Every structure is written in C-alpha cells, then in structure tokens.
C-alpha cells in the first residue's frame, strides 16, 4: 500500500520536495544519467570516474525511499535521527517533553533513557527511570570507586527501513510515509498487538488511552511543518539530532558522514534510521 492511499497524517507525504542539485533519485533521472554517460564516454574518460559514484548513490537511494517511492525530480526528503550517547547526561527532559507533546499515558513510553553501568567486577547493570520525574533522581547513585564507566542511551522508534512492524500489521494500519517516517493509522488499527510483538526494540505498546498501537512518530505533526521533534528541541546537550539525511548539507548528514555510526540490533537487518554514536556491545 502506498503511503498516499492512507488516511491520517500524510499531507506532506506525496508532495514534490525541493531538492539540491546533483541528487539522483528516480529511475528516470538514472536512465538520463546512464544515457548521458554513454554519450559523454565518447568525449572523454572523465565521465567514467563518476560511475562508481553513481552506483553508490543508486544503492543509497534504494535504502532510503524503498520500492514505492514516488518518482520526483531531484532528491526526496528522507528523515533520520542521530543519538550521540557520549553527550547524554540522562536528565530525562526528552521523556517529559515527549509525554507532554504526545499525551503519552503514564507507564508507557515513546522514548526513554537507559543507564549502563560497568562495574569493576565485570558486571554490567542497566536501569531506567520510568517515574516520569525530571532528571535521573530516581536512579540509585553510583560509587565512583566501584565503577569503570557509565553512560546513558536514549531509545525511541528506529523508523527502520525494513520494518517488521509494518510487515506484520494485518490491516495495513502501520505504514511508512514517503519521508521514511513509520506511523500508525489510529483510525484503522484493530489493536491486535502483533506489531508490538514484532518490533525487536520494545518501542511499541498498546496505548491505554486510545486502545491502539502507539510509538514514537518523530513528532510527525511538528516535522511536517519544518519543526524538530520535541525531544530534539528540549535536549540541553545536543544529544539528539534530527533532519533530512538526503540533504548533504543538513546537520545530521554532516554528523553521519564524520562519525562512527552504529544502529541497535543490526543483526536483525531492520536497517534503523535512528542511528547512534558511542554504543557498546552490551547495548541492545
């Protein structure tokens, strides 16, 4: 089902996006490119040097827009999210902001912040403040003498490229917008919770208020107007970056290009678009 058939928050999904030059995004432009390349070949070998580049771009494009991406000239906006765990101080402001922005029921979470503690005896302890209080006041304080290292890891929906949650939804209520945002159509969801089972990251839940599946939307109602998700806006340390990963000039693209990037549970092949800096093997 194409995103354009959907009810719900989709207004921006089929619009032609403005785009920077030089971005190969559609089959048509690819064909044009190949044709140009063939013509130019006779003029010099210069063009050939671009072919590897072209192949790289084509791959990247497929990763980004999926099979049913509408053909538009130039580049399509594709949203991504980057969490730099090395910056997170675990204040929990993002959790509060998310709760307020999205009316998330008590005891349920569209985003949360885990604390990983590595003790000198080799054990790893993980905990999370679920009380909805500001800062990690609820977590037991650590004794620096016992601890090797400790850090925080914010979690949220990964808006995966290959989404098990969309795959299993029996009625197509879980869907992806053209910008790569994974959403739930609350008018269509039958509340079977199959997607809750299928998401490997524990990000989905049956909302106790709406009785439908729910999860992080990257604040779709904000980002479609060019705003940032509430958690990104509120984060005091710049841990969370959000933006268009198809735009090489965006802050997130630059950060992705210059850092060592990881994703959660990469072995499951869901290809998350929420990416991380500073993960360790213990973070799942």
């Amino acid at each position: 089902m194409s995103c354009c058939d959907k009810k719900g928050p989709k207004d921006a999904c089929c619009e032609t996006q403005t785009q920077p030059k030089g971005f190969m995004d559609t089959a048509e432009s690819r064909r044009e490119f190949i044709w140009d390349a063939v013509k130019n070949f006779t003029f010099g070998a210069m063009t050939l040097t671009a072919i590897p580049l072209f192949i790289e771009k084509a791959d990247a494009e497929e990763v980004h827009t999926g099979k049913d991406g509408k053909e538009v000239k130039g580049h399509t906006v594709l949203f991504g999210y980057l969490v730099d765990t090395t910056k997170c101080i675990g204040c929990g402001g993002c959790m509060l902001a998310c709760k307020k922005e999205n009316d998330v029921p008590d005891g349920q979470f569209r985003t949360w912040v885990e604390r990983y503690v590595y003790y000198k005896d080799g054990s790893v302890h993980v905990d999370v403040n679920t009380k909805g209080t500001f800062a990690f006041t609820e977590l037991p304080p650590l004794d620096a003498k016992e601890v090797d290292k400790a850090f925080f890891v914010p979690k949220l929906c990964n808006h995966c490229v290959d989404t098990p949650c969309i795959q299993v939804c029996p009625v197509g209520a879980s869907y992806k917008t053209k910008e790569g945002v994974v959403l739930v159509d609350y008018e269509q969801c039958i509340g079977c919770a199959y997607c809750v089972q299928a998401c490997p990251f524990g990000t989905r839940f049956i909302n106790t208020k709406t009785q439908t599946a729910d999860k992080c939307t990257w604040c779709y109602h904000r980002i479609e107007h060019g705003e940032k998700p509430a958690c990104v806006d509120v984060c005091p340390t710049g841990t969370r970056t959000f933006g268009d990963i198809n735009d090489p000039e965006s802050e997130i693209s630059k950060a992705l290009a210059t850092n060592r990037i990881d994703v959660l549970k990469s072995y499951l092949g869901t290809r998350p678009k929420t990416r991380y800096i500073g993960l360790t093997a213990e973070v799942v």
Partner: protein
Amino acid sequence: MMPHAGEFIFPNDMNGVAWTVMIVLYPYITGLVAGAFVVAALYHVFGRKELAPVARFALAMSFSFCAFATLPLLLHLHQPQRAFFIMFMPNFTSAMAGFGFIYSFYLTLLAVEILLVFRSDIVEMAQGKGVRSLLYKVLSLGVLRETAKSKQIDAKWIHALSIVGIPGACILHGYVGFIFGGIKANPWWSTALMPVIFLSSAIVSGIAMLIVLYVLFSKLRGVRVDDECLRSMMKTLWLFLILAVTLESLELLNMAYEEGAEWHMLSRLVTEKLRFSFLYVQLIIGSSIPFVLLLIGWMKKTSPRIRVTLGTISGLLVLVQVLAMRFNVVIGGQMLSKSFRGFVDYIPEWQGREGILVAMGVFTLPFILLAAVSQILPVWKIDAHDH
C-alpha cells in the same frame, strides 16, 4: 556475554504481556479443530474403518470448536468493532492477514461436509410436521428427496471434501504456528519448526479430546466403548505424541547446543520462569506419562476395561500438555523482554474481558454446541454407505 547484576526489561514491558490467555486459547481451540478433522479423514480418506464409531462425532466436534475459534481473538482485540478490517483491507505481508479467509474457508468446508454426511438422516427427519421437522427442512437446504444417484454424488463429495480438508487443516493450524515462527524479534518463537510443532500438537490434542469425549459420551449413553476404535485412536495418538514431543525437544536441543546470543536468557526461561509449565507439565506429566500409558494401552494384550481407563487418563494428560505447550509458547515468549536482560512478569488476570474466567467461559461454548449438535444429529450412528 558478561555477567550482569540485576535485571532490566524495556520500560514498555513493565505493563505485562500484550498477548494474554485469550491468545493461548486461540491456538488451543484451532488445534482441536484440526486434530478432530484428521481423525474423521483417517476414516473417510484412509479407510481406517475401525474409526467408524467416532467418524461422525469427530466432524461434529471439529465444527463445534471451529465455530468458536475466533471468539478469543475478538475478545483480545483492543478495537473489536474493527475486526472485519482484517478481511476488507488485508495487508498480505502479514502472517495474520490470511486468517479470516482460511478460517471462513475451513468453517464452510466443515459445515458442508457435515450436512452431506448427515444428509440421509436430515432428509428422513424433515419429512414429518411440526417445529422439529422444520429445523431439518432448513438443514436439508430445501432438497427433501434422496435417490441412489444423489447418495452416490454425496459420497463422492464427502470424499473430496475430506481430502481437501486435510491440507486445509494443515494450513489452518500450520499457519497459526507461522504467526509465531515468523517473528524474528523473538528467539523463543522464531523457528521454521514452529508450524510443524503446532500442527503435530494440534493433531495430538484433537485425538486426545476425541478419546475423552468418546468415553464420556459412551458412559452417558450407557453403551460399550468400541475396543478396536479406541485402540486405534490410542495408537495414532501415541505416534503423533512422539512426533510432537520430538519436534518440541529438537527445537530446544538445537537452541541449547548452538548456545546462541540469547541462550543465557532462554535457558533461564525454561528452567526458572517456565519450570513448572514446561519441564513438569509439558515434558513430564503431559508427555512422558501418557507415552507409557498409551503404549500399554494400545497393546493387544491389555484388557478393554483397562484400555478405557488408560485412554481416558492419557487423553486428559495430553490435553493438559498441549494447553501447557500453548501457554509456554505464547506467554513464555513474551516473558522474554527484548532487552534480553530480564523477564516480563506474567500475572494472570481473573476478571476482565481477557481474564481467565471469561476464557473458561469461552472454552465451554464449543462443548455446549457439541452437546446441542449431538441432540439434533445422529452423531453416533455408524454409516455403512460412507464407504
């Protein structure tokens, strides 16, 4: 994996499991449907004539359980009024989307086969006057005449439907297994063996239920249990029990031997969280004991009286085993938090839409329907012309 102090589950898991006892009941009921049908098919298709005394009843049982197979699902849905979306706007990449179609197909098949098997009796009873005959007139679908030729055609159809019904039963239930087996996020579920495990345990539960009900109804009707029929069912049950338990154990053995990334949690799941329901109930009480009892029971030397006792006890134990197996898969799988650092607590709820009381109520409904069907149709009559 490093040792770790303390447990950690993802915060959304703290509210307990998303699939409750209703989702345990759903595969249990569809399993009984598939199992009972297989017994009927053994008679109609594979010429196991000794099963004639239960052939009609098996169909009635299959139908009665099938009629209520969707009820637990409906009770589980958080938006039950949208249940039909699953048929009107199915998303076929979902393992669940085919359910409405497969289920409707199977229920129709069962209903048609029953009407054909009981046709002669229905036509006969529709002849009189009064309210009762009116019911049979409806069941006869208005065709109140039977000829030798029509009987022949009916017999052909019964045969054909039984043949189609076998893969149908396999699909109906293998499919239920795939709903779990296709979830890569959950290492306790994600295995290609899951459909086969579900199917074999379905057949096991169906035969076991049939044995128990056959003995019970025979006692109620004051008739003797047909020894050859019972012996044949016990033998078949024994065989399928071996198959089912082998597959279930193979799956576990494989996980244990491979010692994959999640084994440290899976092993704890089996030995701590599911210690009672898996190790004790599913493997020992529900599998090993019936294995021995059935073996003694189906031997020719065993006296018919003892056979009845052994058959009933092992039938009941096997029914508990399969229920435990459904629980261990459905609830057990969800106890494993996807953080793989801790377990989700399962606190069974008694009251409420998805509570144990409602589940028990739902589970009595097929029996009530079956009792009604056996009042309306001669389910215990032995057909001579079926073959």
